[in-house]
């Protein structure tokens, strides 16, 4: 190998070793207020090891979970008919969904707490302790999330937002939950794939496949379309969700949640 090729090759190699070493740093690096991002090399290798270890013994624990903490495909808890306190959090999409869910809750004896954080994303929720605080305050025994509409176009989203989705799921912990995916008005960069990968089996409703009539902004479903969306989610819960609860069809179209909390858009 001639000298310039040797120089170029060693340059590329040193750079690779440098970034591989960076990726192994457990806590990342911060300079001033700036977070220095590291590549996912270490993370990917760790995932490969974890997956291969988990495949060695696929036995279920008492909650019906595999060693990797997920339910096996098709697992379902029996329908829970007790009255619930449902915490429903998310972005502006809740404006259309929550009133319809409130009508179901009224009919079924559940208490609905609706928390709208306008323009929010998994990033916002994960970087604050807001979800944990809400759980501490309202003691929900069922959580519904509708997030992802503000993340349709995030580049490299599986890497960028996976930790945030994981953190939110960790905050939810053992509380039965359902994550309603965003109502795509355009192709996304992977938010739905990411949610399908991270959210437990039977706990993710893929809204992107549904048809919506849109309001004037072209993104939010119209009120009527949002109500139909909620109906579809509830129908899906009764047949497919991992944690089905009693949700009787209401006689009225919409209702008001027992409590509504609104947060302004993140700056």
């Amino acid at each position, binding site marked *: *190998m*001639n*000298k*310039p*090729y*040797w*120089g*170029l*090759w*060693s*340059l*590329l*190699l*040193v*750079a*690779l070793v*440098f*970034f591989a070493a960076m990726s192994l740093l457990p806590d990342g690096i911060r300079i001033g207020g700036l977070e*220095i*991002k*590291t*590549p996912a*090399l270490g993370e990917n290798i760790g995932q*490969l090891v974890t*997956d*291969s270890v988990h495949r060695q013994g696929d036995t279920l624990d008492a909650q019906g979970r595999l060693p990797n903490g997920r339910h096996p495909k098709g697992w379902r808890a029996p329908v829970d008919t007790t009255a619930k306190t449902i915490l429903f959090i998310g*972005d*502006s999409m809740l*404006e*259309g969904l929550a009133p319809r869910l409130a009508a179901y809750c009224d009919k079924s004896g559940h208490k609905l707490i609706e928390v709208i954080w*306008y*323009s929010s*994303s998994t*990033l916002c929720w994960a970087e604050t302790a807001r979800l944990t605080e809400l759980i501490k305050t309202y003691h929900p025994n069922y959580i519904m999330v509708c997030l992802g*509409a*503000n*993340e*349709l*176009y*995030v*580049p*490299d989203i599986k*890497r*960028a937002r996976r930790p945030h989705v994981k953190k939110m799921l960790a905050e939810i912990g053992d509380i039965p939950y359902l994550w309603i995916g965003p109502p795509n*008005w*355009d192709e996304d960069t992977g938010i739905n794939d990411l949610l399908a990968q991270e959210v437990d089996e039977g706990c993710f409703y893929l809204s992107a496949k549904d048809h919506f009539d849109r*309001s*004037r*902004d*072209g*993104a*939010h479903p*119209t*009120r009527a379309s949002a109500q139909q969306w909620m109906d579809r989610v509830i129908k899906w819960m009764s047949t497919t969700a991992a944690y089905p609860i009693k949700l009787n069809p209401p006689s009225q179209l919409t209702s008001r949640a027992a409590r509504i909390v609104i947060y302004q*858009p993140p700056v």
Partner: protein
Amino acid sequence: MTQVLSQFTFNRDEPMLFTSGLFWVLFLVFLPIYAHLKSRRVKMMTFVIAFSLFFFYKSSGWFFLLLVATSFIDWWVAQFIDSSKNRTERRVALTVSLLLSLSVLLFFKYSNFVMSNLEALIGGNFQPLDLILPVGISFYTFRTISYVVDVYKGKIQPVDDYIDYLFFLSYFPCLVAGPIVRACDFMPQLRDNKPATREMIYGGLWLVMLGVLKKAVFADYIAQYNNIAFGNPTGYTGFELLMAVLGYTMQIYCDFSGYSDMAIGLGSIMGFNLGVNFNYPYRSLNVTEFWRRWHITLSSWLRDYVYIPLGGNRKGKARQHFNLMVTMLLGGLWHGAAWTFVVWGAGHGIALCVHKLCKPWLDQIESTRLTRAVSWLMTFSLVALLWVFFRASTFQAAGQVISGIFTDFEWAYLPVFLKRRSTWCIMLAIIYGLHFVPSHVWDKLRERFIAAHWVVKLLLFIVLVQLVLQFASATVQPFLYSQF
């Protein structure tokens, strides 16, 4: 183990591009072997062909065999054309080769487009075919066509050894997105197989780094806002849409030219000069100049293999304008199978005709700073406006973007926009600024990079990769809530 192996098998959703980490890890393995084999021509070619075909397999699966078949057929046809003295035979061989190449391209790229249009015209129950478009098929088809046509016209001698031709057609730096290098420029370099000089190797690295900066930092970051606005134009004001159009104008340049820079840079590292593909197109003072600076290898291909064979400017003004329109319509359709691309091509065709018509009058206007500024503004505005059709998924969306800009424009949104999307605005301003840095300054920087100490090069490379990492996960402010 299975997961590790899966990294090396075809994945429809994850084609291997020059910006992917896997490519650079593989290139690290490729480079010393290539350098070792460089002086042994046949071994070097065999190795590069194997790597290129793997590169193509990783992006398009078993369709890499299509490339092998195309290269063999066209190599054989070119041999036949050269050896045959019978004019009819030569013409038939050329026609068969062209039909084969074009029919494969048409099938993969335009089947669904044609069928959906037929359905709209005559009705029927159309089901789109689940076709994978082999990556780079448009590029290598044009390259193989130019080779066979040039042999037919006697401009070049056919390649004796098939392995040489397979090397040319499968050469991985040009495979995915060009440049559309011609055999007449490439084959002499392959025959000579001169060793790559220090200038070529580090000049190539410089170009690769510029390409990465353009594609993975600038284009990918500013694309986020453009995607949001173009994805839902009715949710945005005229000012926001104008910013999206200005953003997309630079995004597409950084995207296309960035990838070209990487390809040309890799070629240079390997000791091949692949020419220039983009020459600061937004500095153009008229649309004719724009097409001399934009995607040069494509526009010169269209000129040499469509426009001139149609008659060019040799058959009168009316025929010249007709030829221009046909060329630009085909150029539009080449970019994508949709009517929006055709309209984009037609827009440029009309603009070229108008410029040709007005040229005698325009040439009489004295060239001053003011006239040049006006010419630039008119050219840039037209090009940016036509990009709307290139980017928009439907005519309705394109109409919404354009009408939004002209009917719902208020400067009052400027401060809010600057505040909420400050990083995006700064980045866009930097890109526009860099585009107008004089060429000699860029040449000087390149020379200084080549001459710089190894440690300086390493630091610059690390800084660049870190920039890619920083901006890969940086997000532009999403759409703000608007009332029902």
